[in-house]
């Protein structure tokens, strides 16, 4: 695999990444903050994000793939409990989740 080939791949990736953003700005002309279309797009966006997160926890790719699914799910579940106990303190809960995952992963993997 030559260096030039990788550079072309990077440029192609950049184009394929910018295209949905470009089309999104273009389409946003038809959407206003109070309208039903805005709520519809919100539903789709949150839906995709939730699916993405579920996939990372249940079927991850890369380094997380080698960790236990049970450990990932326990860490995520307890983090949600802590999030509600701390009145939705995102910073504290995120750090709690990572540290818990780190410890569990050390002993149960």
């Amino acid at each position: 695999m030559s260096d030039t080939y990788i550079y072309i791949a990077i440029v192609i990736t950049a184009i394929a990444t910018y295209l949905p953003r470009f089309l999104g700005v273009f389409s946003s002309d038809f959407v206003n903050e109070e309208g039903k279309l805005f709520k519809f797009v919100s539903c789709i966006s949150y839906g995709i994000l939730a699916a993405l997160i579920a996939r990372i926890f249940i079927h991850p790719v890369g380094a997380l793939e080698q960790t236990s699914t049970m450990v990932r799910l326990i860490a995520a579940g307890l983090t949600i409990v802590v999030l509600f106990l701390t009145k939705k303190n995102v910073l504290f809960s995120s750090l709690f989740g990572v540290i818990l995952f780190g410890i569990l992963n050390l002993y149960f993997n």
Partner: protein
Amino acid sequence: MNRTFDNHFKKGCRTALGIPGISLAASFFALGALFKNSGLNAMQSFLSTLIGFALPGQVVMAETLIVNGTLLNILIAVFLTNARLYPMTVNLVPVIRQKNRPRWHYYFLAHFIAVTSWVYMLSNYNKISKENRFSFFLGLGATLWVLSTIATVIGFYTAGIISKKVFVAIIFLNPIYFMCMIVSVLNKLHIILTVFLSIILAPILFLVTPDWSVLLAGVISGIVSYFFFIR
């Protein structure tokens, strides 16, 4: 006007330097290590985040390169992976839109729309006056972009130095942060139903069509909850 712009731009920058930036930088740090293991050099890793700033698409590119995929494979796979950016952008622009701002500003700003900046902005835009949202988001998005680019290069050079267990925990920060952000803003019925439905559907659809599961689960759950609660 300019001073107001500056103040909100700086506020956006400062916000990015907190937990959103730390969490995103952790993921790009891991990406830098992945790039090194995939055969990219430091300049290529730097350039990838600089011009193709969206982590899942960059991971797909590296994985396709490893298996000697063609450039067309890369184009299609990355576009499908990053298709989520389309509804996210359609959703975000009306929130930050200002009457007299030239259109090209939004096309420029679009480069900084990614999950972390989007989740933060959509969760907090009510706290920022309409005329200041553009400058705030520009500060937030641009700072996250710079941090991510730096983190990619650091990750590239430190690959292999950090223990594997610590490395995996660092990667876990980003999904945990996304999850906390989304759960913390679940206050509207249509969004709550969408999220729950999508979490159930995504793993099931993964068994049928791994490549399309995220997109399909999101779209189906979004449509169902829209027709249930909004229409």
